[in-house]
C-alpha cells in the first residue's frame, strides 16, 4: 500500500471515527458513499474538512467531490494530483 494511500485511510478512520476498522480492511476500489463504506452527507463534509486540514487539498464543489469520493484509490489520486502545487 502506498504511503499516501495509507495516510488517506488513516485520515478517514480518524475523522469519521470508524472504530475497529483498520486500513487493510478498506477496499481501495469500493465506493465511499452508498455501498462500500456507506457514508452520508455529513461524513462527506467531514472528509472535505479532513482532506483540507491533513493534505492541504481543497475539494471546491460537488463535481470535484463526485470525482474524489468515487473510491479510496480515486481519492488518493485526487490528493496526489492536487497537492503538487
Amino acid at each position, binding site marked *: 500500500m502506498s504511503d499516501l494511500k495509507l495516510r488517506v485511510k488513516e485520515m478517514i478512520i480518524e475523522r469519521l471515527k470508524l472504530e475497529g476498522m483498520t486500513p487493510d480492511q478498506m477496499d481501495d476500489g469500493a465506493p465511499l458513499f452508498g455501498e462500500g463504506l456507506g457514508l452520508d*452527507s455529513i461524513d*462527506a*463534509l467531514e472528509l472535505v*474538512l479532513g482532506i*483540507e486540514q491533513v493534505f492541504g487539498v481543497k475539494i471546491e464543489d460537488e463535481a470535484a*467531490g463526485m470525482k474524489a469520493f468515487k473510491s479510496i484509490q480515486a481519492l488518493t489520486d485526487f490528493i496526489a494530483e492536487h497537492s503538487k502545487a
Partner: protein
Amino acid sequence: MIEIPAHLPHRFPFLLVDRVLEREPGVRVLAEKLVTNGEPYLQGHFEGRPLVPGVLMLEMLAQAGGFLEADSLHGAAIFLAGVQDARFKAPAFPGDRLRLEVCAEGAFAGLMKLRGTVSCEGRELCTAALLVKRL
C-alpha cells in the same frame, strides 16, 4: 445594526438571539442573549431553581449561526443536521448576558459546519460543533 426579526423567522417564545454585535457573513458571528426570569422554559426548568436547558444553548448557537448567511432566512429552509462534541461546562441563569460566538468551519454540498461557544463574563458555558443543512 442588523434587524433580527427581518433576518430570522424565529419568534417568541423561541427567538433566542437578542442582539448581533459583530457579523462577517460566511465567517463569524458574535451575538448576545440576555436571560431573564420571564423566559417561559425557566418556569419549569426547574421549579425554584431556574437554569437554561443545555439544548437551548445549542439552539442559541444555531440561531446565531443563521446570521452567517448573507441573506434573510425568511423563506429559506435551513435545518439542524447534526451536533458534535457538545460540552456543557456550566449552567446559565436568569440575569446572565450570554455571548454567542459562531465560526464557520467549512461547507460542502449544502451542508455547513459551525463551531460555537456560549460564554458569560469570560467563562465558557457551552461549546459544540453544529451541522446545518440548506435545502
